[in-house]
């Protein structure tokens, strides 16, 4: 019944619009503006252009300022602070160009609206001006490129030797986390060894694997370089953590990495944001299926001492799953060495593989 009412109201509304439209045509025929090339509407539109620009820019500026804090959650990594500076420098540059060009566009539209008897200025080109406005953008762009290139090479350069290393493995629809254990070496893995218990595909025939442990969330120490080894075991995912300005795809068959230095512990951020529920989040940022939007994990930044204490408490996977270990001992699975997995023990090989890609 209600639906019918709404439908009826809509139909009536359309009829009213239709009538108004016909009426408008009839009046314009009588007033003669129907055939005139340039009429009153030219002036109205010119004024509207100006109004649109002024009101639009004011509204834009207002909403930008009003939302400024929301769009700038605090940054908690060393390189993040650098790129943030570059970001806002670039924003200012493009902001200036934005205002200049939009103002020129709408003001010219208003100012040079049609006037009876006036003639447009026949002006086909001016090589000097054109060279100027080719060269200036080129110079500005080179400046921005240089700034970006410097940051980019630093961020993507090799991680410092003393980095804390860990592995993040994406799968539908969560992230698995693996630490190298006491020896500081991530053992070999193989996707053929994966099952319900051995989610990462540990190869426990590799002695480096024996002390590796998994964790429900990522723990990292503050102020120390952290090197993430990133893999995927099914489709593409991306490890994205906006507070750290960290993002890297997780690619099946091609290990990737990203390193950063966290600058604030989770507790410090809770205090700073005044949000007791604050957590550094990892979001999957490459479409991966039904649960893509809910594929998240947490990074906890600890004080270095707390981190060491936490690390020491963790039990290796092999120790927690003696049956898996036993199975490896019995079978000596031959499949293990077919596909070399990422190991920090052989960084050179990984480098080469990456370079080749």
């Amino acid at each position, binding site marked *: 019944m209600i639906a019918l009412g709404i439908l009826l109201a809509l139909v009536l509304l359309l009829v009213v619009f239709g009538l108004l439209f016909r009426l408008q045509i009839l009046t314009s025929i009588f007033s003669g503006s129907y055939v005139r090339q340039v009429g009153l509407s030219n002036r109205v539109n010119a004024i509207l252009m100006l109004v649109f620009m002024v009101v639009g820019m004011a509204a834009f500026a207002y909403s930008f300022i009003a939302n400024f804090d929301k769009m700038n959650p605090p940054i908690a990594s060393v390189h993040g602070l650098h790129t943030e500076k570059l970001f806002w420098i670039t924003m200012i540059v493009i902001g200036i160009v934005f205002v200049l060009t939009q103002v020129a566009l709408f003001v010219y539209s208003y100012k040079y*609206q049609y006037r009876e008897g006036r003639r447009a200025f*026949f002006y086909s080109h001016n090589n000097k001006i054109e060279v100027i406005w080719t060269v200036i953008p080129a110079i500005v762009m080179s400046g921005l490129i240089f700034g970006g290139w410097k940051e980019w090479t630093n961020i993507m350069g090799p991680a410092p030797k003393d980095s804390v290393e860990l592995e993040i493995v994406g799968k539908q629809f969560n992230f698995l986390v693996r630490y190298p254990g006491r020896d500081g070496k991530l053992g070999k893995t193989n996707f053929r060894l994966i099952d319900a218990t051995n989610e990462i595909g540990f190869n426990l025939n590799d002695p480096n694997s024996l002390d590796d442990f998994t964790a429900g969330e990522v723990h990292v120490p503050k102020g120390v370089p952290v090197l993430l080894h990133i893999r995927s075991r099914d489709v593409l995912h991306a490890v994205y953590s906006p507070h750290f300005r960290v993002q890297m795809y997780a690619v099946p068959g091609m290990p990737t990495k990203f390193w950063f230095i966290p600058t604030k512990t989770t507790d410090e951020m809770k205090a700073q944001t005044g949000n007791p529920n604050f957590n550094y989040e990892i979001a999957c940022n490459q479409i991966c299926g039904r649960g893509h939007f809910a594929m998240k994990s947490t990074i906890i930044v600890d004080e270095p001492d707390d981190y060491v204490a936490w690390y020491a408490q963790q039990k290796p996977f092999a120790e927690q799953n003696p049956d898996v270990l036993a199975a490896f001992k019995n079978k000596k699975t031959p499949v293990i060495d077919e596909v070399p997995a990422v190991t920090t023990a052989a960084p050179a090989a990984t480098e080469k593989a990456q370079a080749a890609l």
Partner: protein
Amino acid sequence: MAATNIPTGGAHAQEAPHVQHHAAGDHHDEHEHHDQHWLFKYVFSQDHKWIAKQFLISGIIWAFIGATLSTLFRIQLGWPDAQLTWLEPLLGRWVEGGKLNPEFYLALVTMHGTIMVFFVLTAGLSGTFSNFLIPLQVGARDMASGFMNMLSFWFFFLAGIIMFVSLFLETGPAAAGWTIYPPLSALPQAIPGSGAGQTLWLVSMALFIVSQLLGGVNYITTVINLRTAGMSMAKLPLTIWSFFLTAILGLLSFPVLFSAALLLIFDRSFGTSFFLSDIYIGGEALNHVGGSPILFQHLFWFLGHPEVYIVIMPAMGIVSEVLATNARKPIFGYRAMIGSLIGISLLSFVVWAHHMFVTGMNPFLGSVFMFLTLIIAVPSAVKTFNWLATLWRGNIRFTTAMMFAIGFVSLFVSGGLTGIILGNAALDIQMHNTYFVVAHFHLVMGSSAFFGMFAGVYHWFPKMFGRMMDEKLGYVHFWLTILAAYLVFLPMHYVGIAGFPRRYYAYTAYETFNQFGDLNTFISIAAIMAFFAQFIFLFNFVYSIFRGRRATENPWNSNTLEWTTPVEPGHGNWPGAIPAVYRWPYDYSKPGAPEDFIPQHIPYSQTVASNLPYEKEME
């Protein structure tokens, strides 16, 4: 007039169509009424103008389908907690207990992107205006091959049917994003849409590519060979230059997408491992080893990036033409405009990997592509400045087309500038795949290409249908659309800067993103407003075809050749001989001339008063 002015190539090429269409020229009317069965006149037509209308109307239908899909997912994003049971009559089992199915959400996003990029802004825009304007503006009776041109439309039509059917599959349409990155798009275990839906997507796109290539070869050939006497390349309207270069881009890049699609089909159906390696899914380790998902991305974006210029360049051409005509001024820097189009075309082939900065690709490649990407801003900037200079000291008539052309420049600037941030690899680490990207490309190639298309439709409607569209409705349409476009896409930058990821069905689980509920509701309301505003256009379009005010031959006092044809040109375009061309198309408001325009076919000998010193010798 000096004969030396006519390039021999053009004059020679003119012979063929003259002979070929002799009958069409002299006995124009009989030809139309007796020779052709209605099926070949209205359905399997080989007339470029009719094919253009077929492309346009299919494009409009697809645009409404694409916009409907976006409205659906904007409802989900704007009101994540709402009960959507009322959508059940439309979506059936994709609404489960009042909630949209998350996989169907991804399918909506995927199909919206595919439809808008390929079916509307490539086929609908290029297909319509390249077909309609190339023969009319270069002075040809028809395309080089009318038959291939017809095939081009029908391959597109077939591709459309297949894509449309895929929307109604049991397992849903393709849902791996319009970029169909494998392994997601290769494995039905990963998402049901990668089953039959993805198969139909690939088949449809393969046919679409065939259509593009058939069309592109025709456009290029026509521009090179069938220009009328005197129409040298340096006298072509900028529309033709842009269609010409667009066709070249398409011809060079679409085959690469075809190869990527083919390899993906092999991976999906024949057990190869081009893009697959080390995968454990659905409880089993797959036998694929050694492939690279990143390889697919390289192949995809080798098309994908030129594709955005395939979308935007025709709009640029249309806008240049409309701006000059209605500002009553020559386009500023005609040669620089051509030069920048060529520059953009060349550079568009060497920037593709800026879509892949954080895929794990070698960082050195990232540096190279950052450098090349930011260079492409220079020709784009030149174009913008030239458009502004064209308005400067003009005498502007705000026709609806002109409004949309101005709107195009505004949106192109707004969207283009943020490209400077995204093209910077160091900044892209944070911005990649966020709503900042969504806002960027929807402004710079989505909205502005649509504005270019609207400018084209309003401007050439009189030549297409012999009637005018209603201006008042056009103004309402313009103001609502530009307002809505900005209201939708400006706030998207804000959420993007905070890192809000795209293709998220819901964001409420994240501490970082759930603060944006209000903004998302706002964006959704604006998007729905934009959607409804398009019905004004639809009404105006359909109404005006049948009942619009009758057009005159040259309603905008324009210089280009299409306005020398009859109000409704028949097959063969000109009833008599094709006019020869003597001047460039932008002699507007020339000092000394009685009118404020001198069409291209007027010889210098008739305009002695207004000839510039270097034109004197051509009298």
